[in-house]
Each structure stands twice: as structure tokens, then as C-alpha cells.
């Protein structure tokens, strides 16, 4: 079966045009990367409602806050590194603290940024955004989910961070599965262990679950597209059933989904878990494939983590 591959940033550009048509209050900002973030699609359609502030990301976030304070719905996009750490205090004070209706959209995140190297590969953005009060953090698993997320965020009122990717990603979420911000999705049921994954790692988690299935292990797969607010109830329910958890994300193991899950399980139902992610390192140049392999963000790595938690559970 040919799997559909979609570029999440292309879907972002197209969906911006769609919501721009529906809501005249939608405005879009970019910082000299509109061809990369694909916000250029909106710019072509609605030049009056598009602001390219140049290479001035801090200024972009402040400007977005001002637009939101005046009743507009700004989507501000650039690469993940420049959309978060680069402008952290502008986001903290002008967007999160104020609770203003700004959508921050990061087009290039994680190791799969590839050849540009460590300076451009944010592995800490989820952590940075998650710790801010009022900030919603959304990481779609595929192209179609990106469309659902952008649409949902346009009607949601409040600050939000949307994390997208440079390469195309396989479509993994069934077309008829309902999408609701803040509600995690069970993609596979399973009683032996659960893979909790986000973004690009959801497809790897599904593959790992299939692999383990061949050996008779029933692994559940949960897609966490909204890391904050986190769907604690669903996690606790599936984790308690399975008794072992592996978390997968294209992000540092510190502060992201792995930490979120560990926090919840630690407080509510401690059980064997492992975090698969980048282990407190910066990235480097290389092809996305080579990097994911080198840093252990693969289905094979998830399978071996799965076996490890299983053995701990059965001890």
C-alpha cells in the first residue's frame, strides 16, 4: 500500500488561505522565511493581511501581540529555533502573560531540519513553550492533522504554539478519526505496553507496535497531538491497563512529551517507562534520515525500548 506523504508546512500554507477566506480577522506574519514556512501562499492571496517584518523575529512576536490586542487573529511563522528560544521573553511577556490570541507556527523543528545543522534544529521548543502558563502546545502527527489543527487553532482563543516539520511526513491518522484540541488519540489498542508518541514519531511508534505484534506483544499507540493541555485522563487509563510506557518524540528527552508523561505517571500511577528522544545533545548536519538513525529516533529503537519496559514490568 502506497502511503500518502504530505508536507505539513505546505498544508499550513493552504489552510491559512482557507481560514483567511472564512475569517477576515486572520492575519499572517513572517520574518523573511515566507517561502520556507509557506505563509507565502497566504501572502499571495491576501497581501493586505500579510506582514513580512524582515529578519526581526522579536519584533514579529510583539507586533503579533499588538494585532491580537486589537482583535485580530495573527499567525506568526518562522523556523522553530527563531520562533521560540530566539524570542522567548517577547513570547513570555507579550503573548503568554497577556493571554493574547497569537498563534506561533514553527515550520522547521527537530533533527529532520537536516543539513542546516544544530543552529537550526530546535530540540527544546516544546519544553520552552510548555512551561509558559496559558500557552497551548500542538504537534500534529501528519499533514491532514495539520489542517485540522490550524483550523481548530483559528477558532480557539488564546496563545498557542504549533510545531511543524521540514520534510514530508506519511499520513498515519485514519481519515475518520475525530480531532479535538487537548484530546489524545488511541491509534492502536493493546494490553501489554503503550507507545505514547507525538509528531514525526507517531509513524515510528505505529511501526514499532506492528513489529512487536509479530512477536505476540500487544502494544497500544497513543498520539498526543496536544502536549498542553495534556490529556492526563486518557494517559492514565491506557497506562494503567498496559502497565508499561515508552514515549517517543523528535525533541530532547528533557522537558518535552517524555517529561510530561513522567510527571503525570509519577504523581498518579508510577510504572515502568522509558523516554525515547534526543539525550541532552545538540544536533548536527546530516540528512534527516542519517540523523534520526544516529540519534536513535527509529522504530527499531522503540522496539528495543519496548522490550526493556516489558522486562521491568514483568519483574
Amino acid at each position, binding site marked *: 500500500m502506497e502511503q500518502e506523504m504530505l508536507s505539513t508546512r505546505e498544508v499550513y500554507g493552504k489552510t491559512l488561505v482557507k481560514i483567511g477566506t472564512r475569517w477576515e480577522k486572520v492575519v499572517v506574519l513572517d520574518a*523573511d522565511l515566507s*517561502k520556507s514556512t509557506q505563509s507565502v501562499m497566504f501572502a499571495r492571496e491576501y497581501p493586505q493581511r500579510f506582514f513580512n517584518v*524582515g529578519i*526581526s523575529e522579536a519584533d514579529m512576536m510583539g507586533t503579533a501581540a499588538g494585532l491580537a490586542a486589537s482583535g485580530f487573529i495573527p499567525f506568526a511563522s518562522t523556523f522553530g529555533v527563531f520562533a521560540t528560544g530566539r524570542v522567548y521573553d517577547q513570547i513570555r511577556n507579550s503573548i503568554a502573560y497577556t493571554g493574547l490570541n497569537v498563534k506561533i507556527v514553527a515550520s522547521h523543528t527537530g533533527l529532520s531540519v*537536516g*543539513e542546516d*545543522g*544544530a*543552529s537550526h534544529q530546535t530540540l527544546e521548543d516544546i519544553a520552552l513553550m510548555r512551561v509558559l502558563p496559558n500557552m497551548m502546545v500542538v504537534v500534529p502527527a501528519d499533514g491532514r492533522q495539520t489542517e485540522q489543527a490550524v483550523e481548530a487553532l483559528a477558532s480557539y482563543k488564546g496563545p498557542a504554539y504549533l510545531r511543524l516539520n521540514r520534510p514530508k511526513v506519511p499520513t498515519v491518522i485514519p481519515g475518520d478519526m475525530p480531532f479535538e484540541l487537548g484530546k489524545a488519540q488511541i491509534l492502536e489498542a493493546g494490553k501489554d505496553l503503550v507507545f505514547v508518541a507525538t509528531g514525526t514519531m507517531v509513524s515510528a511508534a505505529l511501526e514499532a507496535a506492528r513489529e512487536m505484534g509479530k512477536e505476540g506483544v500487544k502494544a497500544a499507540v497513543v498520539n498526543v497531538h496536544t502536549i498542553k493541555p495534556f490529556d492526563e485522563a486518557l494517559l492514565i487509563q491506557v497506562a494503567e491497563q498496559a502497565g508499561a510506557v515508552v514515549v517517543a518524540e523528535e525533541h530532547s528527552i528533557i522537558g518535552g512529551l517524555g517529561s510530561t508523561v513522567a510527571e503525570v505517571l509519577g504523581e498518579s500511577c508510577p510504572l515502568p517507562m522509558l523516554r525515547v528522544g534526543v539525550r541532552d545533545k545538540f544536533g*548536527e548536519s546530516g540528512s534527516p534520515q542519517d540523523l534520526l538513525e544516529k540519534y536513535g529516533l527509529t522504530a527499531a529503537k522503540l522496539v528495543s525500548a519496548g522490550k526493556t519496559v516489558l522486562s521491568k514490568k514483568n519483574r
Partner: protein
Amino acid sequence: MQVLSPTALDELNLKSKKLRRDIVTMLHQAGSGHPGGSLSVLDILVVLYYKVMRIDPENFQDPERDRFVLSKGHACPALYAVLADRGFFPSEHLSTLRKLGSCLQGHPDMRKTPGIEMSTGSLGQGLSAANGMALAAGLENSDRRVYVIMGDGETQEGQIWEAAMTSSHYRLDNLTAFLDANELQIDGWCKDVKGLEPLAEKWKAFGWHVLEVDGHDYAALLEAVQKAHSVKGLPTIIIAHTVKGKGVSFMENQADWHGKAPGKDDFEKALAELTD
């Protein structure tokens, strides 16, 4: 004052042609990267690394060496070509650019590449680092000098102007900045994205000694650097008017060639233009 003899000029012209070949070759082999800004900045690097800077590839960590910061880090293929040619590392490494495990990262990494003094890639940060290096030279009563190159689009970053005030406030006359004024950024002409003019007046208003030259004219660049050295109490910025993609006709003045590598056909065409 050092003046370039006709033979010296010929040598530089030959050298820069070779380095431009290295740049397009490296980018072609890498399959990604930034030709436009590498080709526009090259001639400034040539003057600095072959005529101006006190550096010794054999002893590249000499505390008394001059310092260089490529604030517009995406143009590192130009710097890598120059550093390899000057012997900081073997030229064979150039073909590993941007590949897994290479010492030549997609953006400069001071921990991986001999001769790189500051990791850059996130625009707008290099002038601050250069200020720090210039202040350090002062604290140590050293006559070493600091050079930094910024992109023109890059000066839309607020930090550049914070740093510009720091340089003049501390009278950093051991600091020479260059602006690679090719008038283009990624999304088009700077004047259309977010205008920078009046450029020279802005830097003057920030307390800088400002010079403007043709950024592909070695004699003019060298003369400007020497003028900068003679000015006391003020930092100097040399606004170098350049052509993005310089030397490869179909890349010149094209925003599209900012960040894509030449494929086989374009690479061969480029190489032909750079060979005589």
C-alpha cells in the same frame, strides 16, 4: 600604506576564481546550502585572509591572532574554502560539507572547525560576539584586531543595533565591521521586505566611522581597512556594495539562489564561467 601591485591583484583575482569554484563545487556536492551570500562575501574574505589578518594556520590558537566572526553564518562555504586554502584544514574536507560527521557544518561551528572563532547561523548575533572579543583585547592590552561581517538583511535584527551602540560606547577602534550590502535577503530585495536606508546615516548616527566601497574591488577594500585601522576612538563599518551570487552570471542578483545548491547542469555551467 600597503598598496596592491598589478601582480598582487592578478594573484588575488586568480585566487578568488579558484575559491569560487570551490564554493560551487562544495555546494553541488552537499546538495544544499547558500551560494548567493557565499559568492557575494568572498572578496571581502580574500582581502582579510590573504592581505590583512594576523593569523597563522600552523598556530591557529595563538592568543595574539586577529579574530574573525562571520555573523552571516550561512555564507560559511566561502569561509571554509578560504580556510582550507590557507591551510587550516585539508581541502579534502570540503567535499564533506553538510554531511553526517563532517567538521564542516551547515553553519559555522567553532568546536568542529579549525579557524572558526564563533559559532553562528542564527542571524544578528555576531557583532555582539565581536564586541566581546574587542573588549577582551583591550583588557589584555593586546594590539590584536577583530573583524566581523554582517549581511544587510541581517541588520533588521534588533540585536545588531544594540551591539552597534555597545561598540561605539566603548570606543572599539580595534573592531572593523563589514556589511555585505548585496541588497537581497531571502524573500526578495531588502528595500521591499523591510527597507534599510539610509544605511550609512544610521551607522553614523550610532557613533560609527563609516566607509563605503565596492565590495569586489580588492584595492578599495584594502584601502578601507587601512583607513579603519588609522581611526582612533571609533569603530569602523565598511559598507561593501556587493552582488549576490557574484561571478556566476545566472546567480547574480537572484533571490532564488540564496539557499539552493546547483544541480548537475547549473554546476557545470557555473564551473565553466569560473574557469578560463
